């Protein structure tokens, strides 16, 4: 157990008051030590992003999480604006752009469609991993390690509060394991999604599974 990793969760949801699942996920990681939740739509309702401030924030953290609903196979608009402005040439990429090198990058998304929808045969025709390629490549170009994404699927079908709770608990396990370096990186790299087999990725975890 060395020093804990500093985690920055860049959270983007334009209408959090309408989202049961994301409210629950955020609640699960609120107030954790060494975890900063940066609620972009709350801080920049007018899309006027403070680039300097954001870049400093990135420098202070080791693991960057994009947490957002999966809109049109991508992020909500403000997070895209954030990428366009903050990941500057000369800061995030390019010859002198080495600020993010060696950090880890995680996508945490919620999708309305279920697992079947995101397959070659499904109506989305591509898998989640395929559709997330722009984010993966962005991380790559910035010299960050891209981790398998944390994905909550089929949110339209999540009726039961305890189903949602289970995802929230998983998210809590993932974030704390990343923070405390309790992740089996080798195992994790085999996985399609981080929360596909949590016990495999976080061996020492006390992941609780509801019957």
């Amino acid at each position, binding site marked *: 157990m060395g020093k804990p990793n500093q985690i920055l969760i860049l959270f983007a949801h334009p209408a959090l008051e309408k989202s049961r699942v994301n409210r629950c996920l955020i609640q699960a990681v609120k107030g954790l030590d060494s975890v900063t939740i940066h609620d972009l739509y709350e801080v920049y309702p007018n899309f006027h992003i*403070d*680039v300097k401030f954001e870049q400093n924030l990135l420098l202070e953290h080791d693991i960057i999480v994009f947490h957002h609903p999966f809109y049109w196979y991508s992020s909500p608009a403000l997070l895209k604006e954030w990428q366009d402005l903050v990941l*500057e*040439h000369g800061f995030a990429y*390019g*010859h002198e752009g080495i600020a993010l090198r060696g950090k880890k990058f995680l996508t945490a998304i919620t999708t309305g469609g279920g697992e079947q929808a995101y397959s070659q045969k499904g109506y989305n025709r591509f898998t989640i991993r395929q559709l997330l390629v722009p984010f993966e490549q962005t991380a790559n170009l910035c010299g960050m390690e891209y981790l398998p994404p944390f994905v909550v699927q089929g949110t339209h079908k999540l009726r039961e509060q305890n189903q949602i709770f289970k995802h929230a608990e998983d998210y809590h396990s993932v974030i704390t394991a990343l923070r405390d370096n309790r992740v089996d990186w080798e195992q994790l790299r085999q996985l399609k999604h981080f929360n596909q087999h949590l016990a495999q990725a976080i061996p020492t975890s006390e992941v609780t599974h509801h019957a």
Partner: protein
Amino acid sequence: MHSEGFFFQAFVYLMAAVLSVPIAQRLGLGSVLGYLLAGVIIGPFVLGFVGQEGSDVMHFAEFGVVMMLFLVGLELQPSLLWRLRVPILGLGGLQVAVTSLGIAGLGLLFGLSWQMALAVGMILSLSSTAIVLQTLNEKGLTKTEAGQSAFSVLLFQDIAVIPMLALLPLLEIARSSANSSVTVAANGLVFAAAETAEQGAALPGWQQALLVMGTVGGIIVAGRFLMRPVFRFIANTRLREMFTASALLLVIGITLAMQLVGLSPALGTFVAGVVLADNEYRHELETDIEPFKGLLLGLFFISVGASIDFNLLFQQPLLILGLVLGLAIAKFGVLFVLSKLFRLELSQGLMFAFALAQGGEFAFVLFSFATQNNILTPAVANPLVVVVALSMVLTPLLMIINEKLVQPRFRDLTPRPEADEIDDNENPVIIAGFGRFGQIVGRLLLANGCTITVLDHNATQIEMLRRFDWKVFYGDASRTDLLHAAGAEQAKLLVIAIDDPEKTLETVDRVRKHFPHLKILARASDRRHAYELIRRGVEVVQRETFGSALEMGVEALKALGVRSYRAHRAANTFREHDEQALQDMAHFTGDEKGLLARSRQMARDLEQLLRSDDRELTQDIDRAWDTTTLRKDR
């Protein structure tokens, strides 16, 4: 010691109140008990400062009850009254009927004739509006389920006094055949509620009934249509005392009218209050009448204390105390059973039963009426008057027992959300000043389903908004009592949007002192004013012209050919920079008085602002979208 001087009398009463009430409050006994004890002390049996005129004082002081019901009415919109109809008629009606019969039964056991027993039963079924409402108010229990139920019962009782006055004469012991019972009943009605009532030309019953209905109808119509222009006319004088005078005039006028037609003045003013409940001048009326009500009620309680006949008590201590206890237990029992019937929670039911387990102030009136009309013999009535007075003294004590010993047992229950049936003051937002600025704030809030209370002191403005169905009240926001009446205790936000910078600062200071929980959003007239507000720690300060001037700047940039998005971003950058500068300077610039110094300071501020080169702001706006560095990198 019997100086007849009015001032001496006033001095004694006030002195007694000022000495005993704070002590009683400090001891946690509540003000009502303090007043009652003060009355006992200055009464004929201890110090003897006040004696035989006690009952005259009581009649005068009953006016406090009248005012109290007016204020209660003001807080009750007709629609709310309608919603309370089940508890009022059901709970109230059953309480009066069951208690009357129960006590009458006890009376029969004591060997009273059935007529006497029934009369005593009816009279003792009433509870004390003054004591109960005052006590509940003080403890902040009016909004609880028990408080609402108690209020409903009291309201029914106040209405029930009128038929009682009509029925009592029918129970006369030795009725002379010359008097047909119907005439006596009509006389009873004419007598109603005040012995000072003018025995107008004895009218036949149907004319009397028409007169009564006409008067009540008149009050309703006048309240609905006449009072608004009248109040506006008075408000335009901008003299506060005129408003106070007109408020008093209204209450006294109604009292007189009700006495003329032989109805209870308290009921008349209550009706007037309900009619005026959604009038925009309501808060102002409340704050003007409140102190009078408080003092007169105090006087009433003092005179009750002074009127307790201790001679009787010492002659038959066991009988009287036994009766007091019996009365309390009987009433408590009936109330508690009814509370179960109407599905009140146990803790609420107990509180409700404790609160109403005493005789009421109308009992004094009714007992003297009954003895004068040979319904009761003095031998029966006199001890009962003492019993009622003592039971009133008992009430605050019972409430303390309830609060300290009974209620704590129910603490573990989760607190219920408070019902808010008696009041609509509890909007989370109060907007003070509803001109060009406040209106926009208010419209946005309303469009998003927030309820707001609006205060404004411009009568014409109010009139205009009224026409569009806005809830607007007349009043000056810098007055603490008015903010209080507007529900500042329960509100979350206060938006100060008035166009008088000095008054804004005054209001901020007052609110900080009296309602520290309120979050303040204030409109600033200019930079200096904004500094003042920031220094006072106001959470949100908006300069009234800044936003629109900035928008104008954006339009100018666009007209010069700058792309919209760039102009928009430039303005945002400028805003952030300027807000920052405002915050910084607020804590640096000295607090200068005087217009000249002020304008000089303004000029200095501006210079400083201009010197900090605003042009550097545009430098880093959109570096990321600038591809020059990328081209170099290739």
